[in-house]
Every structure is written in structure tokens, then in C-alpha cells.
């Protein structure tokens, strides 16, 4: 299942859970996944019926070399608590060096996130191949655990708090 937004395919749309009085923090995590490996690995994880947290929103890229700082920062601006880029194993990029470029950009943006006080540890780069369905699920779990431990992105904290206040006032 996927939908198309701004020209990129978004897979695994997550419905907001409603109703719980004190909802546990469920992070929103955006995964920028290369079509040739991670995106296929996600598909495989699906066909293998592997469980992984529903917190992950996957954005399909033609290659992780398409990743740029604007894109990663935008995800944080739009409310992501964590972001990761998943590309092919080093040396196996379909476009030779796209994943190595992505690795550098991720490192650069980590620095920017630290500088602005959002925290570079909310962003990560992973490498896997299309046959690694279980690894895909494991990465999704790892990243969800990491972000849960870190708590909501400082950018979303205020927004979440006021939303919770409104809920409380309304309820």
C-alpha cells in the first residue's frame, strides 16, 4: 500500500491512534529508502509478514544519492521525531556512489541538527540489501527504540503539549 505525495511514493501510512487518555509517546519516523535495496527489503519484510513498528513512514527514492539536507530538515520541520536514510551496502550502489554521498550528507545534517539543538542522534544512515527483509524490520525497531528513548523532537514538544492540553480541556 502506498500513496503518492509530491512525486514520491509514501508507503505504510499510519493512522493516528485516538481515544487513549494518556497516550504513550509514539514517535513519527521517516525513512528515506532507496528503491534498489531498502524499499525492496521493506516489501520483502511485508511479504514475509515480519512485524515492525508502525511508526515508520517510508519515502521511496531512486537512490539515496537523491537525499539532500533540505529534504532531511524538511522531515523534521513537518513533525518527524526521527529520520533515517536506508541505502545499499557500501560498494553495491546501483549508481556506484550514491549511498556514499548520502552518508556524507547525513553526517553533515547530523552536525546541523546538533548546532540547532534538535540533536544529530535523531538522524541515521543504514545500509542493507534488497534481500534483507528481516534486517529492514530490525532497523525499524532499532530506530523506533532509539527515538522513544530520546522522547519527542524538541521541535514538536510544544505542539504536542498544547494539543494534549486542548484534549484535556475538551475532554
Amino acid at each position, binding site marked *: 500500500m502506498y500513496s503518492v505525495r509530491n512525486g514520491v511514493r509514501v508507503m505504510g501510512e499510519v493512522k493516528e491512534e485516538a481515544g487513549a487518555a494518556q497516550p504513550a509517546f509514539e514517535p513519527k519516523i521517516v525513512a528515506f529508502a532507496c528503491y534498489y535495496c531498502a524499499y525492496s527489503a521493506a516489501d520483502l519484510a511485508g511479504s514475509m509478514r515480519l512485524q515492525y513498528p508502525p511508526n515508520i513512514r517510508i519515502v521511496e527514492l531512486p537512490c539515496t544519492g537523491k537525499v*539532500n*539536507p*533540505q529534504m532531511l*530538515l*524538511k522531515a*523534521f*520541520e513537518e513533525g518527524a521525531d526521527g529520520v533515517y536514510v536506508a541505502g545499499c551496502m557500501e560498494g553495491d550502489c546501483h549508481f556506484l556512489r550514491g549511498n556514499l554521498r548520502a552518508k556524507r550528507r547525513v553526517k553533515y545534517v547530523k552536525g*546541523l541538527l546538533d*548546532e*540547532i*539543538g*534538535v540533536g544529530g542522534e535523531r538522524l541515521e544512515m543504514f545500509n542493507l540489501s534488497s534481500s534483507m527483509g528481516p534486517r529492514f524490520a530490525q532497523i525499524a525497531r532499532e530506530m523506533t527504540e532509539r527515538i522513544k528513548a530520546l522522547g519527542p523532537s*524538541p*521541535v514538536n*514538544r*510544544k*505542539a504536542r503539549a498544547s494539543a494534549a492540553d486542548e484534549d484535556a480541556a475538551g475532554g
Partner: protein
Amino acid sequence: MIVAERKPLEEILRLIDGAKTVLLTGCGGCVTVHMAGGEKEVEVLASLLRLHYKKEDKPIKILTQTVTRQCEPEYVRELADNVDKAAVVLSMGCGVGVQFIAENFPKAWVVPALNTKFAGATLEAGVWAERCGLCGECILYKTGGICPVIRCSKSLLNGPCGGSQNGKCEVDPEIDCAWQLIHDRMKDLGKLDLLLEIEPPKDWSKARDGGPRKVMREDMRF
């Protein structure tokens, strides 16, 4: 090209502190080419500023506009509408761009987002180095196309000095000795004899020491 580098975010935040609307403006010239202040860098900085203010729960409006060149009046004037709306204009052009916006908009408060470094070249992707000191009277024809004014740490015109060691400058072992480079190149070109000529003291009044400079071409004026 003019090479610049973004200021630390902390400093930029101080420069725009308190403004409700900021015009973040990029330049399509040199700073686009070396990826310090073009359209993309404007987008990235705008995003970082929005993240910061959202985190602090302070509302701010960031307008963005990148013009072809911040050092030419017709392009700078394109900023007029947005300059009017903004309390602070944050320029990602070089120092020339920042000044030229200020000059063209007497009522605007214009601040730099970059530290302007030097006139230089791209050595390889992601690496830029200083090459010209804008001395006003070029002597590259005497030195095999290697500038002693800017590439020799002491701007010696008859080098090298006694500190040149194994091809490196005594100021920093990372820096090539310009005079070693000049010597080696002249040797390769079979023109070592040119270096025997003693270069007289330079007329520094043609450089910055003569005060701010201006170039005028009557034939190009309207």
C-alpha cells in the same frame, strides 16, 4: 570567485534576535557556485531557523529570495517588496552583497549570514583555496603564474625567506612555500633566469593601502 563560509548558527540567531519577519536572501553568483549562499543554502538555513524558533515556541516568518547577483543594482532592487516586509535582511551573499543591499535600501537593517574569506579557486569538489590578494597590479608574469603576494605568507617579492623547509612554509607545515612552488615551476619552464632579477618594492598604493578603490569605464557608462 569570492569564497565565504556560513557563520555559526548561534551568531546568526543573535543577529536576527527579536525580528518577527526576516528576509533571508541568497546570491546566484560565487556563493552559489561554492555552495555557501545560493538558493539551496538559503533553503537549508531557513529550515534550520524555523526549526529553532519552533523549538523555542517563538513565531517568526522567514521570507526567502535568491537574486542573480547581490552585487548588481538591477538584481538587488528585485528584493524591494520583501525588504519592506522584513525587520531584518539576512544576506547569504559575500560582504559585497550585504553592503550593496544596505546601500540600495537605506532604511533596511541588513546583516551578514556568511564570513567572507578570500578570492580563490576550487581545488577539488568541496575544497577551496585562496589565490589572489587583489593587489591592483598583477605580477604573475614574473612568477610563473603563482602569486607571491597572497600565497607567500609574508608576501615576499624576492623569496624564499629562510623559513622555507622541504617545500613548506614556516608559518604552517600544511602550507606550501609559494617561493618553492615558483622556483620549481620556473625551473620546469626553463625560465629560472627571470628570478635573478630583483623585484623592487611594490607600489602598495594600487592595493588597499591606497584607500578603497574604484574602476570606471567611460565607454560602458550611460
